[in-house]
C-alpha cells in the first residue's frame, strides 16, 4: 500500500486501529509536514493545525531559529494544501506565554536551567492542544517528533527512543503521562532524518530543504542572555571561588548555567592555571560560585514533579538516565521517596543543572521523568 519507506504501521501509530480523527500539529517544518502526510496516507482523517505561539510574530525566519513566524505558518499551510487536508491556525500564544515563557524566565530567576521544549510538550502540545482536540472529537494529536510508540503485549502504549539516535526526541517527550501518550501519534520515529527529507521531496512538500529549527523558538535572535536581561533587568552580584574569595562581578546571576566555562569575565587565571566553571548559582544572595572542573562531578541528585509514561515504578530500580537534551545516558539507580525522585549515578557525571529534566530509560523505553532540584557533588558534598 505504502510507497514510502517507514510509513506508519498499525503497531507503531494506531490507537486501537481503524480510521482515526487526527489533529496534526504543523510547525511549518519538514518533520511535522511529513508526519501529517504519513498519518493521512495511513488512512486517518487528518486536520492540520499551526499553533500561533508568539503574540507578536516576526515576518520571516532568521536562519534556523524560531518556529512561529508568519512564514512558518504559510509553509505549514502550503504543506497542508499539498497533502490535501484542512488547515487552521490556532492562537495559543497566551497559554504559551503563561506556561512556557513565563516559566522559563521564573526558572532562570530561581537559578535553574529550564528546558522549555519539555514544558511546551507537557503543557501546550499534549495538554492545551490535546484537550481542545479531544473536546472537538479528535482521537489523537500527531507531531513530527522523533520517538516511537510501541504497543506492548498487554496493550499498554510505551514511549521508545527513535531509531535515529542523532534525532531522537524521546527526552523532550518524557513528560508525557499514560493518558497523554494514549492520544499521541509520532509517525517519524522509525525513520532516519535523511529519509524524511527525501520523502518530503518526493511528496512535493516545499519544506523538504528547510533547515531544522534549533535553540529556543521564542528567542528569535538566539540571545538568551539578552532576553533574560530584558525580562529580569540587571542585578550586579559577585563571582566567588569555592572558598568565598571574590573573583569578579556579574550583572545578573540568571545569566549563568551550571558547568558554564565561557563568558565568566574573570580577569586573572586560577592559581593552578586551570579553567574555571560555574559550580553554583545562588539567586538569594545573587552569587555565582566558580571552581575547577572536578568540582562539577555529581554523584546523585533529587528531582521533583515526576511524570510517568506508564505506571509509576514501585521501589528502587536500575535505569539509564539522560540528564540533558542530547546527553549520553548513564546508568543509575532511582527510587521514588515521598513523591521525590532520588537518583544515584553509577559513575560521577558533569554538567548537571537543576531545572533540567532527568529522563529514565529501560533500554529504549522511556519510564518517566522529573525535574532536577538538587545535585550531590562528589567534591563539594559533605
Amino acid at each position, binding site marked *: 500500500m505504502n510507497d514510502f519507506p517507514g510509513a506508519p504501521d498499525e503497531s507503531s501509530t494506531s490507537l486501537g486501529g481503524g480510521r482515526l480523527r487526527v489533529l496534526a500539529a504543523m510547525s511549518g517544518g519538514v518533520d511535522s509536514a511529513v508526519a501529517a502526510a504519513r498519518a493521512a496516507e495511513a488512512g486517518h482523517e487528518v486536520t492540520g493545525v499551526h499553533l500561533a505561539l508568539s503574540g507578536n*510574530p516576526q515576518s520571516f525566519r532568521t536562519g534556523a531559529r524560531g518556529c512561529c513566524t508568519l512564514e512558518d505558518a504559510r509553509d505549514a499551510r502550503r504543506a497542508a494544501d499539498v497533502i490535501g487536508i*484542512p488547515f487552521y491556525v490556532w492562537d495559543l*500564544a497566551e497559554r504559551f506565554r503563561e506556561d512556557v515563557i513565563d516559566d522559563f524566565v521564573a526558572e532562570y530567576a530561581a537559578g535553574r536551567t529550564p528546558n522549555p521544549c519539555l514544558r511546551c510538550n507537557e503543557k501546550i502540545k499534549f495538554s492545551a492542544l490535546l484537550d*481542545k482536540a479531544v473536546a472537538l472529537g479528535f482521537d489523537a494529536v500527531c507531531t513530527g517528533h522523533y520517538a516511537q510508540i510501541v504497543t506492548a503485549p498487554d496493550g499498554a502504549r510505551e514511549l521508545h527512543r527513535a531509531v535515529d539516535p542523532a534525532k531522537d526526541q524521546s527526552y523532550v517527550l518524557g513528560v508525557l503521562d499514560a493518558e497523554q501518550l494514549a492520544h499521541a501519534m509520532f509517525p517519524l520515529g522509525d525513520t532516519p532524518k535523511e529519509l524524511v527529507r527525501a520523502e518530503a521531496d518526493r511528496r512535493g512538500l516545499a519544506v523538504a530543504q528547510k533547515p531544522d529549527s534549533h535553540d529556543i523558538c521564542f528567542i528569535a535572535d538566539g540571545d538568551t542572555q539578552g532576553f533574560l536581561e530584558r525580562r529580569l533587568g540587571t542585578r550586579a552580584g559577585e563571582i566567588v571561588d569555592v572558598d568565598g574569595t571574590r573573583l569578579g562581578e556579574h550583572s545578573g546571576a540568571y545569566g549563568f548555567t551550571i558547568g558554564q566555562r565561557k563568558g565568566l569575565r574573570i580577569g586573572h587565571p586560577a592559581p593552578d592555571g586551570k579553567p574555571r566553571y560555574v559550580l553554583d548559582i545562588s539567586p538569594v544572595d545573587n552569587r555565582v560560585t566558580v571552581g575547577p572542573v572536578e568540582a562539577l562531578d555529581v554523584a546523585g541528585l533529587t528531582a521533583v514533579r515526576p511524570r510517568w509514561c506508564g505506571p509509576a515504578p514501585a521501589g528502587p530500580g536500575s535505569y539509564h538516565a539522560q540528564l540533558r537534551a542530547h546527553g549520553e545516558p548513564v546508568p543509575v539507580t532511582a527510587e521514588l521517596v515521598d513523591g521525590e525522585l532520588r537518583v544515584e549515578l553509577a559513575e560521577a557525571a558533569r554538567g548537571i543543572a537543576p531545572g533540567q529534566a532527568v529522563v529514565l530509560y529501560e533500554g529504549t523505553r522511556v519510564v518517566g521523568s522529573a525535574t532536577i532540584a538538587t545535585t550531590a557533588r562528589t567534591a563539594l558534598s559533605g
Partner: protein
Amino acid sequence: MPYLDHAATTPMLPEAVRAMTAHFGSTGNASSLHTAGRRARRVIEESRETLAQALGARPSEVVFTGGGTESDNLAVKGLYWARRDVDPARVRILCSPVEHHAVLDAVEWLELHEGARIDWLPVDSYGRVHPESLRAALAADPSDVALVTVMWANNEVGTVQPIRELAAVAQEYGVPMHSDAVQAFGQLPLSFADSGLDALTVTGHKIGGPYGIGALVLARSATPVPLLHGGGQERDVRSGTLDVPAAAGFAAAAEIAVQRRPEYARATAALRDSLVAGVLAAVPDAVYNGDPGTTPGGRLAAGAHFSFPGCEGDALLMLLDARGIECSTGSACSAGSRSPAMCCWPWGWSPRWHGPRCASRWATPRPRPMSPHCSR
C-alpha cells in the same frame, strides 16, 4: 454548502463577470490619446458615471483605487497630511475604535510616525458613536483636529452609525470627515451628496464585483496628499494605470446592488432572522451581539454575530467548516493571525479591544433557502 461569509467577500455577479470579460481582450491604456486609448477611457468614464449614480455622487468625485484598504489609507493619511501641511497644529484624529484594520492601522501608523494624536471616540455597547460624543471631542479644541473617521456600518456585528448626524457635527466645526462604507454599500441606501461627508470608501468585491478595485468618493474640495506618486491618472490624487475591465465589472455590480438593494435587504433580513431564531433555539445561552433592532435601520440586514459562552471561536469555525458551513470569527484580514478578531462587544469597547475569542460572524448570502438547523 452554505457560504455564510459574505462580509469577507461575495460571489461575483454574472453581470459583473460579463462586463469584465467584454474588455479583457481589448488593448488600450485609458490615458492614451489615440483611438484605443479613448475607447478604454470611455469604459472608465462610463463606469465612473454608473458608480457615481449608485453612490449619489458626481462622477468627478469618484476616484478609482486598488480596493477598500487603499481608499481608507488615502483618505486617512492623505487628509491628515493635507490638513497638517496647512496648519501644523492639526494633528488630532477622531476615530471610532470599531473601524476596520485598514483605518485602525493607518491612524496608528500616523500616530507612530507622523506625530498624530488619536482620540478614540466613545461607543455604546453596540459599537455606535453618538453625535454628542463627537461634538464633545471636537469642542474640546476644534483647531487641532485633522479629520474625523467613522465607518458607515461595522464589518463584524453590523452596527450602522448615524453618519449624517456625525457628518453634520464635523461640518459645523469645519473638519473633514471620512467614512468606510465597504460593508454598507449594497445594503443601505448611500448618498454621498446627502451624507455631508468629505470622503467615502467603497470596494468591488463586497457587492458582487471583482477584487482589486475600489473607489474613494472624494468631495471636490478635498485634496488629500497622494499615497502613490506617478502619472496622476485619478485627479492627481491617485496614480497608476487604470484597470478597465475591473472598473467595468465594479460598475456593473454597483448598478445591480443599488437596483436590488430594497428587495435584497428585505429578503436577507428575513433569512438573518430565521438564522438567529434557529441558533438561539438550538443554543439557548448563545448571545446575539450588536443592535438587536431597537434602532430602526441600526443594523445591517446581512449578518448575525454570536457569542457562544464556553466555546472558542476557532474551534467552532473548524467544526462548522467540517460540516460545510463557512462562517468566520471576525475580519478575514486578521483571521489565522495572532491578534484575536475584534468581536462581540456587549461588554464594552476600548481601543484595539481584545475580546473573548468566542464569537462567530455569519454574513448571510444573497437570498436563497437555508435552514438554520444545519449548524447543529
